[in-house]
């Protein structure tokens, strides 16, 4: 792989950029692999990356039915934070956040991780207490957060309206090293690095079946034929239920549409991420200048990648109330992704009833921030059968009632 740098750009400029090589190869699938990952989203690609990097397993294929990064990884609002309440969550999200800090250098691909800070507003006394609880939990988890006053909130976000007549801002939970990153770049950077390690990223190829012998996996049926493997990682977000069905087990997952929107671009006016969970909306400003806005998920299951307008309306209304100046901005674009929701709003990273089949799903509305940590832990689980990062996220927790409930702390969990 030829390294990217300012120097390389200068060199290429001299020849009309005709010398750049492919970021990732487009190989024909082999007959079999040591490990197969289904789904070339962020989580699938990060898993492959760490299988190679941490465990030297490089005879790996990542099979993607569409184009890599085209699922939720390429549709999310890119909020990165680790100020979670429960220990197991804080551990994996903080691991991920730490890996984001050096991801551009690790991948030699600028993913534009921008630790500009994340504020979660407290707008009821109940929410104040909830975030104070999170701050205390974070203090013991090694996650740096702070409950800040309304005055400090205003200092960080001058465009905010603190004194809304209905839900005045009473403070906020502030994580200074939270922020955003460029979502596509995360997928592309991993894909390039995986391809460089000799892994095959096979796009436009749908997995249509899981072949088993004696209760153990032997390979997958795909739209391009059978491909053998003894280790299969299913990392397909909204379609997890479909893949689990192919493998012959059931998942406690519901798939619903989550939407987001952006405004037309304007000059910089907000340099952090603000989440207002009481009123259901959050906003940040992208490097292009668009205000990136998201809110709640639809209340019914579907696979259409379209959502209902009233969620957009609810979200915009909440944000016009929180940031009155956006009333005179225009909505440029809206879109939706199908998110995989578990009952406790925490992911599943687990062995399954089928030997050799592992599942990584349930990231729901908030898994972008987890990508490197999830890849790290899931690769360890696949390679060694155990990872302290994923230990609590097993499937059996639903049978035992050992939930990791994050909705405890916040209504919306992006």
């Amino acid at each position, binding site marked *: 792989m030829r390294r990217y740098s300012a120097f390389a750009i200068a060199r290429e400029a001299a020849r009309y950029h005709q010398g750049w090589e492919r970021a990732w190869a487009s190989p024909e699938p082999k007959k079999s692999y040591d490990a197969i990952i289904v789904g070339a989203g962020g989580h699938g690609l990060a898993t492959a990356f760490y299988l190679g990097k941490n465990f030297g397993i490089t005879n790996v294929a990542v099979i993607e039915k569409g184009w890599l990064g085209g699922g939720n990884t390429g549709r999310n609002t890119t909020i990165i934070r680790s100020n979670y309440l429960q220990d197991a969550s804080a551990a994996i999200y903080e691991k991920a956040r730490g890996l984001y800090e050096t991801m551009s250098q690790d991948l030699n*691909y600028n993913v534009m991780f921008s630790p500009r800070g994340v504020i979660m507003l407290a707008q009821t006394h109940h929410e104040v207490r909830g975030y104070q609880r999170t701050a205390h939990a974070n203090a013991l988890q090694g996650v740096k957060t702070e*409950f800040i006053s309304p005055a400090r909130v205003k200092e960080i976000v001058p465009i905010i309206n603190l004194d809304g007549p*209905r839900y005045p801002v009473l403070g906020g939970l502030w994580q200074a090293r939270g922020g955003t990153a460029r979502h596509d770049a995360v997928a592309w950077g991993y894909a390039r690095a995986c391809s460089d390690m000799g892994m095959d990223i096979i796009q436009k190829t749908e997995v249509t079946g899981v072949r088993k012998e004696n209760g153990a996996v032997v390979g997958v049926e795909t739209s391009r034929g059978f491909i053998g493997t003894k280790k299969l990682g299913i990392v397909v977000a909204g379609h997890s239920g479909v893949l689990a069905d192919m493998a012959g087990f059931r998942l406690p997952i519901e798939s619903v549409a989550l939407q987001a929107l952006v405004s037309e671009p304007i000059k910089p006016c907000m340099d952090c991420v603000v989440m207002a969970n009481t009123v259901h909306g959050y906003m940040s400003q992208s490097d292009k200048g668009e205000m990136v806005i998201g809110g709640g998920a639809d209340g019914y299951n579907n696979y259409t990648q379209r959502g209902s307008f009233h969620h957009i309306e609810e979200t915009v209304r909440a944000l016009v*109330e929180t940031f009155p*100046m956006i*009333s005179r901005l225009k909505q440029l674009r809206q879109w939706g992704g199908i998110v995989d929701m578990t009952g406790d709003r925490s992911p599943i990273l687990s062995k399954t009833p089928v030997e050799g089949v592992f599942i990584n799903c349930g990231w729901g509305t908030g898994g972008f921030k987890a990508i490197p940590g999830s890849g790290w832990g899931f690769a360890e689980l696949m390679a060694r059968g155990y990872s302290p990062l994923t230990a609590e996220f097993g499937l059996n927790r639903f049978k035992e009632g050992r939930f990791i409930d994050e909705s405890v702390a916040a209504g919306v969990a992006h």
Partner: protein
Amino acid sequence: MSTRLSSGGRLIDRSAARDFTFNGKRLTGYAGDTLASALLANGQTLMGRSFKYHRPRGVVASGAEEPNALMGIGKGSRFEPNQRATTTELFDGLEAESQNHWPSLEFDVGAVNNSLAMFFPAGFYYKTFMFPRPAWKHLFEPIVRHSAGLGKAPKDRDADRYEHFYAFVDVMIVGGGIAGLQAALTAGASGARVLLVEQTAHWGGRAPVDGVEIDGQPADEWIKSALQTLEGMDNVRVRSRTMASGVYDHGYVLAYERLTDHAPEMDGPRHRLWRIRAKQVITATGALERPLSFAGNDIPGVMLASAVRDYVVNWGVSPGDRTVVVTNNDDAYRTALALHGAGLAVPAIVDARATVTGDLPEAARAAGIRVLTGTGIASVKGKKAVTGVTLCAQAGEGAVTDEIACEAVAMSGGWSPVVHLWSHCGGKLTWDADQACFRPDHDRAPTSHDGKPFVTAAGAADGVLGSADALASGSNAAVAVAEALGLSATASAPSANDPAETPMEAVWIMPQGAGPAKRMKMWLDYQNDVKVSDVRLAAQEGYESVEHTKRYTTLGMATDQGKLSNINGLATLASALNDEIPNVGTTTFRPPYTPISMGAIAGEARGDVFQPLRRTPMHAWHEEQGAYMEPVGHWRRPYCYPKAGETHEQAVHREVLATRNSLGLLDASTLGKIIVKGPDAGRFMDMLYTNMMSTLKPGKCRYGLMCNENGFLMDDGVVARIDEDTFLVHTTSGGAEHTHGHMEDWLQCEWWDWKVHTVNVTEQYAQVAVVGPNARKLLEKLGTDMDLSAEALPFMGFATGKIGGFNTRVFRISFSGELSFEIAVPASQGRAFWDALHEAGAEWNATAYGTEALHIMRAEKGFIMIGDETDGTVIPQDLGLGWAISKKKEDYLGKRAQERSHMTDPTRWKLVGLETVDGSVIPDGSYAVASGTNANGQGNTQGRITSTYHSPTLGKGIAMGLVLNGPDRMGEVIEFNKVDGTTVPAKIVNPVFYDPDGEKQNV
């Protein structure tokens, strides 16, 4: 230079001058101008700067597709960035400023990006800015953000109003061109309820500009009479300045009406969002002209041929004295003829096709215009304005054959149907190789709830470009739609003149064999600065999917949403991949069609009416007393009633002590009240609650716990059995709607055959808690026909009767540990009752108390509070509430879940009381630390605080919490963490701090 022609302009009124300013310069236009036409009329061709390279930008289009001429308009609380000059109607006093430049539009420092453009190809930022690590956030990113971003951020709260509007129609027709009008005439005649919307202020679309004649008359005449006919139909509504922005599932359509943008002095809302349920939708949204990709096609003065025609015909504006027309189709000849007709020079029509013989080219030739076939533009000359073009053979690599001086270039690469609305809800497209465009695939239309198609395309939007065909297409669409609605309509369409045309030929790059240096100067996306070379680079680097290309290059992601660039970009990608355009496919079309204001989306819901406000009958009293209110669901409840000079804390303490020592009054009207009635009510209540409710005697109350199916405690409250078939369920204030929904969920989805009916009567009753040692005295003073003595109305009993003349239901329940009566009266009498209690209670210093005093008193008594002691992960067993779980019942919601291994795990944290050693208050949310760290290096814990207060009654800090083996560790001191890393020691005690034997409440 562009200028106003001495005559002509079908839309302007030369007798009505309009003054406006542009970048502070005073200019004049006419009523009927757009800001863009007025600027051109004043010779202002430079209108903005592009996003990435800050290249000079002039207007390229004349409508919603405009990517360049974006302005900041208005000032102060009416300032709005990024408004398209082409869709902004001119009015007196309009103030506009151009964007994205510093220090000025003419001289922009950011344009250095342009000279460095060779270092900034698509995706360059992914490849650099990585070292040193902190530099991205602190150095590079701020630079990138500042140079991007287009318009300025508004600073103030919006001074305008917005509203929502609802409509239900049989047929919604989008687009007021001739196809849309004809569709409306046909559909209207069928009797269907029709709504016809047009995004501009004018009807008729392109036909009048294109010289179309309908039924032998100029198109304008037919349009006028069509509109008159439609306005005369009761079943038809027409709306101009209204854009359909999105089509959603099941015929839900959004439209965006701009009411006062063109006349800000008018009263009323600025924008109106129409929320329409349409049984059928006809999209007659026309087509958009495509630019051509030749070197320098972004220099101000290069415009779409149709736009040039619009400026001449509609607004009497010349784009420049000499305009070169460049095309691959016959339509652009209309522009040449229009220019010629206005007395302007057309030095040449450059046509990429080898032979052209259509009526229009012949007419051009006849007019003496030079037609150069098989020819392309090698490059456009000029920097901030076009000064000329060089020509070459289209088939070659660009060797210059000729050079022509000119001020404008009118280009046409063919037409793309506007398929956005067709596509929003799943309509598929098919590639039309003859016209080189995607058009709606009639066999794969969007389908509604019944699986049947509900969107039909008509006219140019369906790829039908000729005017006679477009009229017929409008009528046919309406007939088909009427049939689908079970109505009958007759196809009929007037005749129209259509010249014989030479077929267009797809031209995606000019000249055919242009090399890399030329491709770096061919713009696809003018606003985002995406060039042919960028798309090819994306393909070369493996970003082959159209979505990858779009994201890697930002093609089509500008504020025009790729209206001009998408198809050209796809074609470029296809050619780079050696593939066919239809195989490459399109990106997804998503609402809105053109950007709509956030204000319109939010509607009227802002400020005080941001959300519905629920008021108890006593709400006004609380406000009169200056209560400090807190939101509880949609209610606002008094947190406390501070007197002059009192802090909130002091007020709360006063309220607690007054209640404990004498008499307190709480407005408890927000308490949820749900009637559960029917022969199966008892059975249903047994399933809802962990307790046995079916055995409750009429006239009695019982405290009950409600769990969800995962076993977690979700609500608690007192249930009163009114009679054999009727229960009155009290829920928490915040939980009433949720609980009612929960009941209905089970009744409707699982136990639909049970004879039970539920009604939420929360707002039908006002409720007051009369609390304290003097509570009974107060009620007796008011006079009652009930016996309120401890014997006749014991704790957990209730009675119905009169108090002080009010009809009441009196519950002997207590959440404070004091003698307490909760009294319900009809809501209409709530305020009078409340006043009567205060008046009569004056002798005992009756004190209104708020939610905080309520919380403290319940914590002093060790009563749990839903939302404090519970958080969705706590089961009743954790809270020592095992006594409220019936052992006799076979089942209740949550029972099975509570038997799971983790739920019965003896190491679950259990409820205890906690007291600091020094009487201080433990911080809210604190965790009890344990020694060591876990496998992930996090500090171990052994419990947490759930409620913590300073108790005014006891004069010290008290807390409740969940602690590992807590109830077995009474007296032990454990450490609670603070956010600063230190800890507070606290002793584990019984959670009932006050009156553990209940002597005060059972009197």
